[in-house]
């Protein structure tokens, strides 16, 4: 997030797009609802599904899945043509406005209605609302990113925010809501193929020299491959060994049949986890880890706040914290890692990651600190890009709408969108072993619009078969207006209904994220 969680409650307007936040980050969802109910904020929801937030919205734009760039260009078209953009801000703090203006010219509300199905008048109303707010916060999540145009979608959100001077101000910003406890921190720590900790490029000689000196080895400058590129690399024989820590790709990754083929082809698969999950079942070696309650360390939340976790109970049997396992394996392989505590590791991070330099365990004992925090006397950064963008001038990207990779046709006439439900988390390894949440949501349900249900002879609560070009699953139907006509929604928590057998592995060319929110699907009563 460019801005803090706390600011959401006190801003003038919230635009929530592609985020079902009340189910995926319920405490942020509450802040949005408080902003509306208690502090009079306006709320615009842009989402194909009738998520709970639509009940609180001043206006809900129900777009067709995968039309985000067109919708945001449409909002900008109205804002510019009605002169609601922040001219002075654009002139002083940004570049590339003329190119943007030219591209959005053709995205008139009427043209956007053709693409997205959003009534032109509604688009105008929402644009005027956003354009006239004193401070407006854009919230988004995987509904924006999990598309072959995910990067374009995010850039479009940034365009809109800059257009109205909403970047670098209290209550503004472009705010991705992260779905996992430490996805922010995993990125910050350089668990990415192109960067060292704190986003320092592996391709930079200067950066590599710094890390070579610190770690006492020579390092490769060749960028690595992403999670989503690994299956093909295995099939092509380029990758022979895979070490998986705390992940369950055999339920979470697209096109599982293809992935399974790849994992089985490996010379060695090492899986380190707290349960023997679907991926572990294919492993050659399984290493038992301690869970969050059994170890010390830090997580970085979605607002970049680095917070402590503390050991409360002992790990079962011989299970060990992941940091100990990695250290012992490294030492066994001839590279000594002899950390006696996580605090010692953080000291090393402080030395090498400039944005974490001032974040010590002592300082975050009572309250976490959001990075950048360059020194131990720095208070941390509540919101980014104040007075000046990190790159200097904020850059507008002129972006055209591109449709999703796989659209419905005669054979597969509907759209499949995937995501989560309130009561479960990711591949269900934890929540499905929790009594309460499982009692509330015991089995996977396929959400389908009543009109589609009627068309395909499907009854509420009855079993249906859902198939794409890649596979099929069976589950009971939940006939509900939450799903728009022509789109079904399936969660990915249940191994019995492994929806990623169905999903399209088509990737965003830059972000390498799969298009989980749109693929073509066929349904029939089972």
């Amino acid at each position, binding site marked *: 997030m460019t801005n803090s969680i706390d600011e959401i409650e006190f801003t003038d307007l919230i635009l929530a797009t592609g985020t079902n936040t009340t189910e995926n980050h319920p405490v942020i969802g509450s802040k949005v609802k408080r902003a509306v109910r208690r502090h009079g904020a306006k709320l615009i929801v842009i989402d194909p599904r009738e998520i709970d937030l639509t009940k609180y919205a001043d206006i809900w734009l129900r777009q067709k899945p995968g039309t985000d760039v067109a919708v945001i260009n449409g909002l900008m078209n109205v804002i510019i043509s009605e002169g609601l953009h922040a001219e002075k801000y654009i002139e002083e703090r940004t570049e590339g406005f003329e190119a943007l203006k030219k591209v959005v010219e053709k995205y008139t509300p009427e043209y956007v209605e053709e693409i997205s199905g959003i009534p032109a008048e509604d688009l105008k109303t929402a644009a005027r609302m956003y354009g006239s707010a004193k401070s407006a916060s854009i919230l988004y999540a995987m509904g924006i990113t999990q598309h072959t145009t995910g990067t374009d979608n995010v850039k479009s959100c940034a365009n809109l925010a800059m257009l109205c001077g909403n970047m670098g101000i209290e209550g503004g910003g472009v705010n991705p809501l992260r*779905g*996992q*406890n430490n996805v922010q921190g995993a990125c910050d720590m350089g668990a990415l*193929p192109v960067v060292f*900790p704190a986003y320092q490029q592996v391709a930079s000689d200067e950066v590599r020299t710094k890390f070579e000196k610190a770690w006492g080895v020579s390092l490769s400058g060749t960028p690595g491959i992403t999670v989503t590129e690994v299956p093909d690399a295995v099939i092509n024989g380029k990758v022979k060994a895979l070490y998986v820590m705390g992940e369950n790709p055999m339920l979470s990754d697209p096109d599982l049949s293809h992935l399974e083929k790849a994992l089985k082809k490996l010379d060695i698969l090492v899986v380190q986890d*707290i349960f023997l999950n679907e991926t572990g079942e294919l492993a050659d070696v399984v290493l038992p880890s301690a869970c969050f*309650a059994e170890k010390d360390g830090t997580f970085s939340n979605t607002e970049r706040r680095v917070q402590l*976790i503390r050991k409360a109970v002992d790990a079962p049997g011989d299970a060990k914290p992941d940091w100990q396992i990695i250290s012992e394996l490294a030492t066994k392989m001839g590279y000594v890692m002899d950390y006696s505590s996580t605090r010692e590791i953080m000291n090393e991070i402080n030395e090498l990651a400039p944005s974490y330099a001032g974040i010590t365990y002592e300082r975050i004992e009572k309250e976490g600190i959001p990075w950048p925090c360059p020194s131990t006397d720095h208070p941390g950064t509540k919101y980014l890009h104040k007075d000046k963008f990190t790159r200097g001038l904020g850059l507008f990207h002129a972006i055209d709408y591109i449709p999703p990779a796989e659209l419905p046709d005669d054979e597969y006439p509907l759209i499949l969108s995937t995501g989560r439900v309130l009561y479960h988390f990711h591949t269900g390894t934890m929540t499905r072993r929790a*009594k309460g*949440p499982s009692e509330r949501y015991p089995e996977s349900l396929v959400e389908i619009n009543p009109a589609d249900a009627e068309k395909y002879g499907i009854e509420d609560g009855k079993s249906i078969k859902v198939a794409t070009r890649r596979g099929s699953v069976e589950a009971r139907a939940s006939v509900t207006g939450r799903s728009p006509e022509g789109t079904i929604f399936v969660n990915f928590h249940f191994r019995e209904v492994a929806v990623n057998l169905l999903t399209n592995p088509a990737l965003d060319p830059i972000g390498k994220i799969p298009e989980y929110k749109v693929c073509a699907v066929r349904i029939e009563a089972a």
Partner: protein
Amino acid sequence: MDDKILLTIDGRELDAKPGQTILEVAKEAGIYIPTLCYYPGTTNVGACRVCVVEVEGARTLVASCCMPVSPGMVVKTDTERVLDARRLVVELLWASGDHNCLTCESNGNCELQDLVYRLKIEEPRFKIEPPGYEIEDTNSMIQKDMNKCILCGRCVRVCNEIQVNEILDFSMRGSHARVGPAFDADYIDSECYFCGECVDVCPVGALTFKQARFEGRPWDIEKVRTTCTYCGVGCQLDLNVLNGKIVKVTGNSEYGQPNQGSLCVKGRFGMDFVNHPDRLTTPLIRKNGELKEATWDEAYDFISEKFTAIKEKNGADSIAGFSSARCTNEENYLFQKFMRAVIGTNNVDHCARL
């Protein structure tokens, strides 16, 4: 508007900001006034009347949680008249419910119990007449016993004003009044999202965490503050631990950002996995197609030999690693360091995209 307001509480001269209540000013000054229905961050309703104080010139005792301070106000918080009034309120609350501390899950963590003790009430002057409601025992997360409810309304207000889930409200009137979801439905039959904040704020034993019942008394339980393991909000919470087991999870508004004490169903009721019998407890190595138990040394040797051989034969880039958005910063740091410095490849990524 920024003018300070000068007033006197229990003989102490204090200054306050306009709009502050007597209770808020007293709390800041460390002057004790008991409360039951008051809950910070929600509307002050003045429902329970245990916070009454004497204000010079006022016709009656006033509820300090609702009364804004005014210049020159003279407040007394512990006169006999005030204490008598509080005793009466507490005795009536005691008498109108089934407050049997022997069996109550909230024994030792009950604000009514504390008040009875503090006000030195031996027994109520009124006949104890519990309403005789059936205990709601139909879900595995929240147990509701309306016989212990003092109708303070905290649960209703946090549900509507803090979580804004808009599930709980009062129904019926007078001595028949009760709290619950619409149409008097059980929690499980309502739209409730089971954030459990109503239970966290209940001052008595009316709402309790079902799975924690009979698992340990409050004074035996250790609270360990940590960060939630589920989504990216990073809620601060207390794991309530006894005998090496997580008994329940509670919020704490004093921890401040980012969640000010609020939690959701996963953080609150999703921790059964920690102590689950399915947990992996020993390394496993595949032999003849089956995963067999092994020692750590055997596992490390196996991996080390394989990785080294593959690296020598096919180069470091033939090995890839998936780090984890579930693990700590320190572990992610070490994992990428392992892949880069020990293996020698940048083939390291994690599930941010999924």
